[in-house]
């Protein structure tokens, strides 16, 4: 038979454990907590060039790589400058998420991975995407 103190102790242990349980189930929330002018500019720039990026992707000139960036797949100077600017803006956004959410030194690679998975999900049929293995495939 359990001693009364033992039952209370077990109850308290369960209670302290349960307090952490919802945190384990819910996805963590990472946001751009402070919309600085630099981040706002990066987002506006991306919106402004979005259609052109889509055009180059549908022509097979650009593809979404496995690092959350766009890569050149064919030599095209106009697309190259567009891709460089796009990647600068993406990096600014990724770094802001890392900094503002305290994700630490390994956070940037995780953010890049998450974005690349979403960009691959959103890629249209026929667009080129780079797998984690490094191989390029058409979606």
């Amino acid at each position, binding site marked *: 038979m359990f001693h009364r*103190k033992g039952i*209370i*102790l077990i109850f*308290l*242990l369960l209670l*302290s*454990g349960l*307090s*952490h349980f919802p945190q384990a189930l819910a*996805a*963590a*929330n*990472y*946001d*751009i907590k402070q919309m600085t002018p630099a981040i706002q500019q990066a*987002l*506006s720039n*991306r*919106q*402004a060039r*979005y*259609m*052109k990026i889509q055009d180059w992707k549908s022509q097979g000139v650009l593809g979404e790589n496995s690092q959350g960036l766009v890569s050149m797949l064919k030599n095209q100077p106009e697309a190259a400058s567009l891709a460089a600017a796009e990647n600068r803006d993406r990096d600014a*956004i990724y770094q802001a*998420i890392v900094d503002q959410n*305290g*994700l*630490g030194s*390994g*956070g940037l690679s*995780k*953010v890049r*991975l*998450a*974005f690349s*998975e*979403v*960009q691959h999900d*959103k890629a249209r049929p026929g667009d080129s995407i780079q797998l984690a293995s490094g191989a390029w495939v058409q979606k």
Partner: protein
Amino acid sequence: MKQDAVNAIRLMFLVFFLAGCTVKAVGDPNRPITINANVVVDIRGLKNTATNIEDMVAQGATQPNQGG
């Protein structure tokens, strides 16, 4: 009676420990304790953030040559 009080204090410390309370270390300031924090990043949460941002970019996209 005294033993009950001691047990109660022990129990309280145990509960605080398991509940994740902050523990303040006191030591020599010339020999600081280095704690390598292991930041756990939830990839699901990051993917939600990435989805929101990519949706915002796509939805706010401006048409090229719009209006002339």
